[in-house]
């Protein structure tokens, strides 16, 4: 079946949302309008079993570290990637508040947590214990790196599978 799905990239500024998307798709548009509009849109098709799913990626922009999204941009999303920067502890806190905000605005949606910048092992601010603790929230978590491509394709694949299950 041919399907189209909207997914959002969420997370504090600088965690690597745009880099992950850039790694995943070959972007053709200038990223200039991104700052004006607060969102950048890309697309990529993934094949999951007999489904060909075209993902419309809404890369939402945060504001000065404190992430404030236009709720309107979340509307109609089938799922989202919640990105955390392993080298900045506060981005984990932001992730919690974003998660709450999304549930309040559009309800429960399939999502996947990415612990990004996994290549910067020296600079980790989030400990393994804290990550183990995250298990209690029933989050699906992947470590990723937009720099060396670790788990980038996989992240979108896993999320798409989750979304197809949710139909």
């Amino acid at each position, binding site marked *: 079946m041919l399907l189209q799905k*909207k997914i959002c990239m969420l997370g504090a500024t600088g965690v690597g949302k745009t880099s992950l998307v850039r790694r995943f798709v070959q972007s053709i*548009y200038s990223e200039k309008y991104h700052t004006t509009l607060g969102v950048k849109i890309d*697309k990529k098709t993934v094949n999951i079993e007999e489904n060909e799913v*075209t993902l*419309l990626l*809404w890369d939402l922009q945060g504001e000065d570290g404190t992430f404030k999204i236009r709720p*309107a941009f979340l509307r*109609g999303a089938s799922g989202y990637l919640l990105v955390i920067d392993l080298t900045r502890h506060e981005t984990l806190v932001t992730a919690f508040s974003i998660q709450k905000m999304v549930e309040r605005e559009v309800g429960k949606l399939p999502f996947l947590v990415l612990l990004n910048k996994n290549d910067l092992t020296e600079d980790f601010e989030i400990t393994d214990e804290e990550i183990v603790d995250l298990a209690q929230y029933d989050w699906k978590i992947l470590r990723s790196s937009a720099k060396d491509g670790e788990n980038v394709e996989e992240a979108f694949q896993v999320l798409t599978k989750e979304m197809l299950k949710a*139909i």
Partner: protein
Amino acid sequence: MPSGTLQKETAEVSSENGENPQFYSKTEEILEKTNADALSEIRKILVQPEEVGEVLPSAFQKSSKSDKKLAEATLPIVEENIRQSVQRDPKILAEALFPVIGPAIRKAIAEALGAMVQSLNQTLEQSVSPKGLRWRIEAWQTGKPFGEIVMLNTLLYRVEQIFLIHKKTGILLQYAALDSEENKDADMVSAMLTAIQDFVHDSFNESEDATLDALRVRDLSVWVEHSPDAILAAVIRGNAPLTLRKTFIEAIERVQFQYENELDNFRGETKTFEPSKPILQECLQMQVGEEGKPKSKIFTPFNFLAGSLVLLFIIGGFFFVRDYRRWSNYLERLDSEPGIVVTETKRGFFRHEVEGLRDEMAVNPETLLAEYGYEPSNVKSNWKGYQDLSPQFVLERAKKILNPPPTAQLSLEDGVLIVRGTAENSWYLEARNIAKGMAGISKFKVVRE
């Protein structure tokens, strides 16, 4: 009964007018007591900012409802605040205002430029035509600038692309375009249009259904119509009349009506909406020439086209007839020329062809072309050599080949080549030999005088 007492006392104060010191001091005492209460109340308010904070909004509200005094009183303060804010860091205010002002400015500039360019072009085009004259009169009568009248009268536009978008997700449901080539990024454009909608909606933050109706980028504009679950976006080149909106609204209403359930339960299967394509295609309209007030039916695009065709036929006909006569004259001439036999001719649009036999003694047909108005390049000639046996040609040929001395003359009578005058013997001998072998000569006869 304190109130009774007070009443009585007051009455007495007023009647006796301070002539009773006892009453006076009593009054003073009461007043003082009330004042003290009130004052302490007021003092309390003044020392507690939270309470001022509570009172102020309603005070402002009431004041602004009844008159403008408060607004006037606070205006200088507000102005000063803004001035200081701008002085300290203009970026803050600029950023705050940008979402409102930015698009408005861009829109205004684009519109002004668009109008200017179009009116300029059309002014140049129309100022000399009868239509232009009529519009000049109209401009003079209405007091509007000529350019504006021209623009009102000629709206040229073309709807190039139609997007049918699922409102909630921004996903492209169906797409139609003038040129059959698919826009492979139509789905991203669709998502972006939705994002822009959301952005504008948030930025202006007006009512729930405050929406963006049009975007303009140079001579392209995007018109947007909404139904409860879908958006129809039309990309238009040029200036379309507002009546076109009706077409779009009808289209989106039809889609909404026909696909009510599918739109409501949309899960990303865009294929469902394929049958809606004809509805979109109907929106791909265009208009050339005059639009709006159909004042003169003579100048409809159709009539213009038909008129051009007729003119083309008349002009074409003229050239056709002229050329026909020229060509037949040329062929007649060739026919009448000795030593030329035309075997085949062909009349083309730009180039004619003629084929035949030509004696080398005959006139060169190509040198005749100019007489009939042709260039050698206009006519493709294919002449095969042959020997014309008419006496004239036989004689000519004999003269050329035998090359008699000036003292000898050649003539031809019934196939007999006759030589008169004198020549050397050796010439006679050679000439006799050659002449015998020549076509059209049966005998070689020497007449000596």
